[in-house]
């Protein structure tokens, strides 16, 4: 065993230098010439930028709401609820979410509520909701903003992303992008606070 220790130590050092050092530096180097410069997809605005793919909390009636998050949309501490499908406490929580949602969205039938808007995502940072989850919120958002429902519905339609290659993955709506577009529509003009920079 003894004669193997020194080569093991030396090989460990070489591997550390190469796989931790050079590999990481090389990936970082190439990332710098990518469009996003290895900084994730960001949406610039007047006060900085938003992370396009990181779900964020929206609580106001004027916005579309994202899915429930087990960690309160803490992007420095991701996690899911880890609740099992038969856990009575969990089922009670979902029941409460459904009842609350119905109370906040009069005129919506129970069967119209999609599961994604009353269940917590895996990361707690899901940036998307289903088009159906956006449509059932359209009336509430339109009322809060004093807009015609058809305008809001059209915006949802315009922000519905198709599956990759037409069939891989889910049809979805990015809540942040949709809400920013809403703000742009409502605040168009010099009073624009939160809208995207042109281009």
């Amino acid at each position, binding site marked *: 065993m003894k004669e*193997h220790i020194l080569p093991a130590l030396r090989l460990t050092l070489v591997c550390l230098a190469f796989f931790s050092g050079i590999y990481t530096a090389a990936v970082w180097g190439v990332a710098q010439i990518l469009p996003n410069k290895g900084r994730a997809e960001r949406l610039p605005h007047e006060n900085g930028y938003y*992370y396009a793919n990181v779900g*964020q909390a929206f609580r106001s009636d004027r916005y579309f709401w994202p899915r429930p998050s087990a960690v309160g949309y803490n992007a420095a501490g991701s996690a899911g609820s880890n609740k099992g499908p038969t856990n009575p406490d969990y089922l009670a929580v979902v029941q409460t979410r459904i009842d609350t949602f119905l109370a906040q969205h009069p005129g919506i039938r129970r069967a119209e509520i999609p599961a994604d808007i009353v269940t917590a995502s895996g990361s707690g940072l899901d940036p998307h909701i*289903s088009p159906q989850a956006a449509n059932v919120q359209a009336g509430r958002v339109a009322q809060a903003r004093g807009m015609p429902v058809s305008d809001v519905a059209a915006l949802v339609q315009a922000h519905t992303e198709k599956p990759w290659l037409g069939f891989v*993955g*889910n049809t979805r709506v990015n809540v942040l992008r949709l809400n920013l577009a809403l703000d742009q529509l409502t605040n168009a003009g010099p009073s624009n606070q939160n809208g995207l920079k042109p281009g």
Partner: protein
Amino acid sequence: MQTELYTILFFFMLTVALAYPFGRYIARVYAGERSWLDPVFDPLERFFYRLSGVDAKREMRWQEHMKVMLTINAVWFLWAMFVLTNQGWLPWNPDGNPSMTPGLAFHTAISFVVNCNLQHYSGEAGATYFSQIFALMFLQFVSAGTGMAAGAVVFNAMRQRTTLQLGNFYAYFVKSCTRILLPLSFLAAIVLAAEGVPMNLGGGKDQAPGPEGDTVEVSRGPVAGFVAIKQAGTNGGGYYGANSTHPLENPTILTNMLENFLILIIPMAFVFALGFYLKKKRLAFMIFGVMSAGFLLLLAPALIAEMRGNPHLGQMGISQAAGNMEGKELRLGAGLSALWSISTTATSNGSVNAMHDSFMPLGGAMQLLDMMINSLFGGVGVGFLNFYIFIILATFIGGLMVGRTPELLGKKVEAREMKIAMLVALLHPFLILVGTALAAWMAASGAPVAATWLNNPGAHGFSEMLYEFTSASANNGSGFEGLADNNPFWNISTGLALILSRFLPIVGPVAIAGLLAAKQTVPGSAGTLRSDSATFGALVFCIILIIAALAFLPALALGPIAEHFSF
């Protein structure tokens, strides 16, 4: 439902189609044949050998291979322990995260050395940039290389000749890392970064103003490079706590399919590599057929259960068109999450793109069964070693059935080899069942330490404990993450299970292959049970089924099966 089915079938066939030529490449690497990449890799590897002072041409016996492997793994463990217990003051800690406690560091170091990556910490708050890159990602490369090198030793030993000399461990190890893991990870890392996985070296958490006036804190880091090798080396330990459910670790459907592809590609290619290496393609097809059949048979129930959704939510009257969405990401959906969950448990990868704790009981049962079998493709290199044990068992039982001394590829399988094979085969259920029994006894007897372990009551709580020991013993690393596992009991018990279940299933098959290689070749006759026939494949499949069913059905009945029938 239908589009998911097409997607999954298309994905599976594409992965197999790419695994075949990749397997040929792997075989060439281990056989030392010339390739057009030599001008790059030859000097690089010479550089590795010269700096480490090893003679990569010196042939080793199987015992020496194992000594070299255990020695260097011990060095890695000590290095990781040092880094993790001192990461708080070591450089490159922009988030100011604290050092790990000794118990947690012990568990984490073991877990990454053995290629398991079971995590009792959460990356954002529990590790630093330095420890992620210089301890954890380093181990993701070298532990994968270790498993593949051990696989290469068994390849070498299975060749048709009588010998004690089975190649050089350092050479197999370095080549696995440089020629197989490195190019694959590098290319994948670039694609991941381009698709929006962060790859920054400094700065720590980003503070971005939120749309509603609050501040959004976003954890970042050198994620893209980390995630690539995490997926390709069947490691599975996420940069972020939520692993590949996290929208920065797996932002798009493209990254999801790429990461799922990386889970499967080397374990699949390794089977074809055996065929090319031994020039016995039919043997590889037999093994591949058994593995694929098992894989698809486990996938189907999981897929159906997830796509149907949770009946309890159905009773509440809401629409479940998208399936069971608790713990899942909308961009990925229930179907592709089921595909990933079976891929990751089949290969001992252990990364997740949805929370396994919140899968339907049937989905959870299939994940458990996948890890209990632990050789449907299996971990890089070691998946084949586990399957090799089943081949030995099938050879023996088949030999008994036809009344001849069992032979594998012209070598007599005798009592000594069988004893080793049985020891390895029984270790897996022993660790899982004894560990779970102990934990369940503590939880049921109301031990104060166990009061806060479980996140779910009843049968599902039992499943959480069963899953943890199964994942540890399969060196998988996924979890029913509701389990509160960062405490002395779980850190130490699963830590010990990890060591045993990594090194015995490597040393055992290498020893058997080494012993067989030293024997004289017996010429085949009409009465020989051919190991590359469909009959033999069916026999192996049945033996896998019988061992898994006999050993694990009672435990599964107490957990996911009981929960399933509670609907």
